[in-house]
């Protein structure tokens, strides 16, 4: 053990000496680490591991990568201030990160104003790449629209005609319900939406919400709540039999961040988007899973994959552009292909959205844990609007 550490240390020293004359490429990273640690900690572990792997292989073009990571405490004003510091004082080549949509938007607008490349890793808002998209911002994670469209396609295959929706009362919830309604109505014009509930984010009064849904007598329920709201909704809904005999479609619920805390009370038979990391069996993913468990001693979360893919994307970008000049990097981002543990993804030139997909399946309980079964991987490219449609949604600039 000691010997291994010493060897590693020696290797690290040799590597760093041999590259001492090449300045590292600095990447500025901003995220809501203290506001929502449940999601951002695994994300951080993901990109840290990717960073170590990339640098161990010698970095990009002989230059090491260095990430300067900062906490925005969940405030967009802070995030912009940090962006200023990273760009002006730390001389980072590009910005990356953010979880909350409004913080992602604030940083994307800063990027546009100051002509800095921004790789938005986690925010889900459609506006980031569409209605408020700009030349300098690219987004990795499948958007609200993409995930809702995946679920609507599955919902259209069920018998349910009368639907009720329950979503947190803020932009993400509103967008997710609107996208689901739009796609489902297009696929199956006979559907009818009989009720919608808008509990305040992370403050759901689950008992009364469940009863209001029950009163509408829907055949299908579309859920967008997550985190502690989801736990409360599942408990109050199960005890009152809300989900019995109904089709339930639920956004993000299959992601380990949300499914694992429910343990053996995880709902059964819900159609969800998520991340069945335990069952994906491809060589790339198996290697990723093994490396992550070895490095951190814990299992994968959705955030781990997003964080890992973020840094892989940046490394691929730097390989391709061969320069840290912003215009060259922006050009390289368009159509950039990245090999990730989930296969190849492409950053579309038309709307700057990556084609990172998601897994769609049904929830079940196995060995006292919530899992996804009967899942399939839906490529993001299959649910995104065409390049022309996407371009039309973006402001002209």
């Amino acid at each position: 053990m000691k010997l291994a550490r010493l060897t590693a240390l020696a290797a690290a020293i040799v590597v760093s000496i041999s590259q001492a004359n090449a300045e590292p490429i600095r990447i500025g990273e901003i995220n809501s680490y203290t506001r929502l640690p449940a999601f951002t900690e695994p994300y951080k572990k993901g990109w840290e591991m990717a960073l170590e792997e990339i640098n161990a292989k010698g970095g990009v073009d002989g230059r090491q990568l260095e990430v300067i990571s900062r906490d925005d405490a969940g405030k967009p004003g802070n995030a912009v201030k940090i962006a200023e510091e990273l760009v002006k004082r730390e001389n980072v080549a590009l910005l990356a990160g953010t979880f909350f949509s409004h913080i992602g938007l604030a940083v994307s607008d800063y990027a546009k104003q100051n002509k800095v490349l921004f790789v938005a890793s986690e925010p889900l808002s459609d506006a980031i790449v569409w209605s408020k998209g700009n030349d300098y911002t690219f987004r990795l994670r499948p958007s609200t629209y993409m995930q809702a469209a995946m679920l609507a396609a599955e919902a259209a295959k069920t018998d349910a005609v009368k639907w009720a929706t329950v979503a947190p009362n803020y932009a993400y919830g509103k967008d997710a319900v609107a996208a689901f309604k739009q796609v489902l109505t297009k696929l199956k014009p006979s559907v009818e939406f009989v009720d919608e509930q808008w509990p305040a984010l992370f403050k759901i009064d689950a008992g009364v919400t469940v009863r209001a849904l029950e009163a509408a007598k829907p055949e299908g329920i579309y859920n967008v709540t997550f985190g502690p709201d989801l736990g409360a909704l599942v408990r109050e809904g199960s005890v009152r039999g809300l989900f019995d005999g109904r089709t339930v479609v639920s956004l993000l619920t299959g992601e380990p961040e949300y499914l694992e805390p429910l343990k053996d009370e995880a709902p059964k038979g819900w159609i969800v988007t998520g991340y069945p990391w335990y069952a994906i069996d491809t060589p790339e993913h198996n290697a990723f899973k093994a490396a992550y468990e070895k490095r951190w001693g814990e299992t994968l979360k959705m955030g781990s994959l997003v964080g890992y893919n973020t840094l892989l994307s940046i490394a691929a970008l730097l390989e391709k552009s061969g320069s840290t000049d912003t215009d060259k990097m922006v050009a390289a981002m368009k159509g950039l292909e990245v090999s990730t543990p989930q296969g190849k993804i492409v950053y579309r030139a038309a709307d700057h959205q990556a084609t990172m997909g998601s897994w769609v399946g049904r929830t079940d309980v196995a060995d006292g844990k919530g899992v996804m079964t009967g899942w399939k991987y839906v490529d993001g490219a299959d649910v995104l609007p065409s390049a022309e449609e996407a371009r039309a949604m973006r402001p002209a600039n």
Partner: protein
Amino acid sequence: MGFYVAQFLTGLASASSLFLVAAGLSIIFGVTRIVNFAHGSLFMLGAFIAYSISQKLGFWLAVPLAALSVGAIGWAMERTVLSRLYAAPELFQLVATFGLVLIIQDAALWIWGPTDLLGPRAPGLTGVVRILGQPVPEYDLFLIAVGLMVLGGIWWMFTRTRFGILVRAATEDREMLQALGVRPARLFQVTFFIGAALAGLGGALEMPRQPASLLMDLNIIAEAFVVVVIGGMGSVVGAFLAALLIAQLNAFGILILPEITLVAAFAAMAVVLIIRPYGLLGKPATTQPHAVEIQPPQTLAGYGRIAAIALVAVLVVLPLVADSFVVVLTGDIMIFALFAAGLHFMMGTGGLISFGHAAFFGLGAYAAAIFVRDTGAGMEIALILAPAAAAVGAAIVGWFAIRLSGVYLAMLTLAAAQILWSAGVQWQDVTGGDDGILGIWPAQWASGTTAYYYLTLALASTGIAALMMAAGGRFGHLLRAGRDAPARAQALGIDIDRRRWAAIVISGTAAGLAGGLFAFSKGSVFPDVLAIPNSVDALVMVLLGGLHAPAGPILGASVFALLEDSLSRLSYWRALLGAAVVGIALFAPGGIAGTISAWLTGRRKETA
């Protein structure tokens, strides 16, 4: 029919859990006059501790043990921190409880990790009872019973035990009780223990209803305050009625208007306060302050004037010597200093507390942003509109607020801020909702870090100087008269209400200008400028700086912003920031500026 009965019972269960938290808060405020921001943190600790105990000892032992543990934590909080601050100016303890919130947040993250923890259901109460054919969970009925038992228990304690009678006496008239020889120290300790234990019980009993999560503390605290204020501060029965009102409003409100969830409680509070200025069962403070405490006027004298001139000189040359990020950070601090100075004017000179000052900051920011977006016109007019819009908002809020006093007034401003915040979130056509308004950058001549810095410096320093002059001038004197001796001031023919109203408008105007400057410095506006944390930051800056010192808001804003900026580079930085805030509170109970000025005055006296 059955449906409505069941909906009512479900609402009643929610009311019970809300009541448990609010009752403790109300008792603590009634006796100690401490606005305990950390009460939500105690609730959260209750849930986490109950989870941990339940893993070993099961649900039924976990609940009482968690309540007792949290009671002990509350007791320790009182002993180590708050008991040292009873002599500090009104509300100053709030700063310390704010620091404790930050410390407890990071401690919980460190101990229990970031993942939500779903505790066990209550064994024996996992099923449902059919009432008029509708399923009602047994646990809901149990919660209702616990709520009623706690209400009964507190009532019994207050009316039948010596301790309860002392508590009531302390609530009515603390000075008199002390004069009669009752030592308040022990009374306060027991009160804190009971109040905290009730919060812990509330948190523990949430185990079967929702997972323990790190968001519980801030999610419950605003609502708990609302309940306490609607009920009447210090009135436990009032808190029960208020919890009932809010829970039922939510239970039936969402059947008609599902989007009501964001504002129901705050709108109800605004209505109640306008009709009943002391809440449902609260009583107006029957006793005037026993001795009129006349605070000296707030003017810059001697050292202060020299310091102010030196400060402006340093700020003028700063961009020539410092790197551009220092300039950006200093610009931010000046904006916050202006925001805090406005609040300080209202609170320090006017004695009018605001818990919702973000309302005016946000109005300014949104007015500027909406104007630029919709007209495409320039920053110059937007920066006039920002304070103007905030002034109008402040005039409207102030019109209702001046009839109230103390914490009730503060809570009405909070209600106003929350109603505006929910408009910011829900009125998407105008405000852009959560996605906000982007692309609000300064005009060409003011763009660039240095140019915008000088614009900020010019406007902020003018604003702060104007506020200082108003506080030191005739208007400030009349305002202070109304604050320290309202009866005498009225007898002299001073229209206090008009002055107070004007003070709120002036204060709001300064906040609006700060908001407008903030919008152009960040390039975008989101509802968070209207949200509670923004109000709390301003409040902490003012109190930390010192309520009765003219340099207070400048020092408070600088220290707070610099601490946050430097500490947030470290892990577990919130605990460090919290510890720093608590430390300052303990060592400088007059605020930073107040303590410095007391020290300087003391030295001058010694040398004289």
